């Protein structure tokens, strides 16, 4: 197991976490997504990996971004991982306790710049599945369902998905289209998906390997996944997160 005991005096008082492969993997996926956020944007944040994206954006890359959670919490400082969109840790750092209607209305009005989502599957059309999986033997495995994912996908000005590095999650056609990449009006829909190795954009309507960490190989990433994607002619090489950033992710994920 790769461990990393990088230290930083910025995190005074918080116990330094043991940096596991899992933490590094999540940090890499989240960092890749966070790089897509511009400062001052308003983000609608799902639970799981999207919270780490929000945390890295807010604490490092885009310090003036506005975070919104579906429970109605707004202007949140996402300092520790919340288990639900209404968790006490984010309720305590929210500057506004609104309602679910308030935040979905913001979304529908077109005021959410970026929706941050994870899913069980994403396909080459940019559709997301969080409802059910069909196993090889044909059995159906139920998942918790859309929650706000369908709504965010249709209504956010732009959606960035963030996923673990699991080939079964990247498919040509999702088993169930929970969140169709059919954005309302002239909104952008699913703009791309970040994962621990790379970032695929959907600029052409199909996945293109657009950005890759400098310690990864484009061909092998592209081939490792279970979907038909292409490699961009203008592939961008990104330095992977390290040091303070990884440690910050470790603290975030630990103190939940």
């Amino acid at each position, binding site marked *: 197991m790769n461990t990393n005991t990088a230290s930083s005096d910025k995190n005074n008082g918080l116990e330094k976490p043991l940096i596991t492969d899992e933490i590094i993997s999540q940090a890499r996926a989240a960092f890749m997504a966070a790089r897509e956020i511009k400062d001052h944007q308003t983000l609608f944040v799902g639970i799981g990996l999207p919270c780490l994206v929000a945390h890295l954006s807010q604490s490092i890359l885009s310090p003036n971004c506005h975070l919104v959670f579906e429970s*109605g919490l707004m202007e949140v400082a996402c300092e520790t991982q919340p288990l639900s969109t209404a*968790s006490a840790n984010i309720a305590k750092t929210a500057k506004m*306790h609104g309602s679910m209607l308030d935040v979905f209305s913001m979304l529908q009005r077109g005021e959410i710049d970026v929706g941050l989502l994870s899913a069980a599957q994403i396909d080459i059309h940019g559709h997301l599945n969080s409802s059910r999986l069909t196993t090889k033997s044909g059995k159906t495995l139920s998942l918790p*369902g*859309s929650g*706000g994912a369908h709504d965010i996908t249709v209504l956010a000005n732009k959606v960035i998905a963030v996923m673990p590095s699991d080939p079964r999650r990247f498919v040509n056609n999702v088993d169930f289209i929970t969140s169709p990449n059919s954005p309302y009006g002239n909104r952008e829909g699913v703009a791309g998906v970040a994962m621990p190795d790379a970032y695929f954009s959907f600029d052409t309507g199909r996945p293109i390997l657009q950005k890759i960490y400098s310690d990864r190989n484009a061909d092998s990433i592209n081939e490792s996944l279970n979907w038909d994607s292409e490699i961009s002619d203008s592939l961008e090489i990104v330095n992977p997160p390290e040091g303070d950033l990884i440690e910050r992710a470790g603290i975030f994920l630990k103190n939940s």
Partner: protein
Amino acid sequence: MIDKVMTAQQAVKKYIHNSDTVFIGGFGHAIAFAIAHEIVRQKKHSLHLVKTGADIVFDLLIAGGCASRLSCGWYGNPGIGMSNIIRKAVASGELALTESTNFSMMLRLHAGKLGVPFIPSPILADGDLAGSVNGIKTIKCPFTEAQYQAHSALNPDVAIIHAQRSDMNGNVQLWGSVGDTIEGCEASQKIICSVEEICESEEILLCPHLTKLPAHKVVAVIKQPFGAYPSYLHDYYQRDERYYAEYTSDTKDSLKSDEWLQTSVFDHEDFDSYLNSLPGTLLDQLAWSKS
């Protein structure tokens, strides 16, 4: 002024009827566990439960055989995993589940709150949920001719909720993260509310901006400290994280679920008795901390 204070036993007996459509208040926060326990204890059945995101209080009601229908946008143990109980009840045919999205359920409750037949929205026009959701029809905007989905009003028979406090007349004060709770209550025909504290109306008058429910629809006020346990209540107590973490294994099969129901509900005559059965210092440990 009418005194609506009664016990959970009295309120559930009087105001919740088999086959009612029931909205369960609390979203991550302030979940109406105490009243839900009483519904299970009284073996109410054939309820239609409605909610945006359905958490483990729904499992409790469904494990208890209280519900025959569930309409929601999500179900599970938030941040932890799937609901074994709901999954099994659906597979066995005991529970009819209509899966929707959180915002569609919110809009349907909001249409119920507004007293209008529907609210138009672009959601649920596409995707595999679009065909299977109840209460949605495609319409044309009379101004632009663009297509929208009409999300029809939901007006539950009764809402159960937990809040910080109320006077005896049902001026209920709730704060912290509210989620869908207010809309669900306003859409409902009547509201049963448990609270940590019953206060004088004079105290309500000091902070009327905290009053969130119209008293005329509140039919019962129940004094029940820790009535949202194991969920949290802003400014009162933290969530019992261990409970949620162990919950999935506690309910991993029918045997375990039955045991869980027995020891947490049926072994007790009321919620206080259940709270007293918890490890000695647990509730003290859950004391709210500001930071």
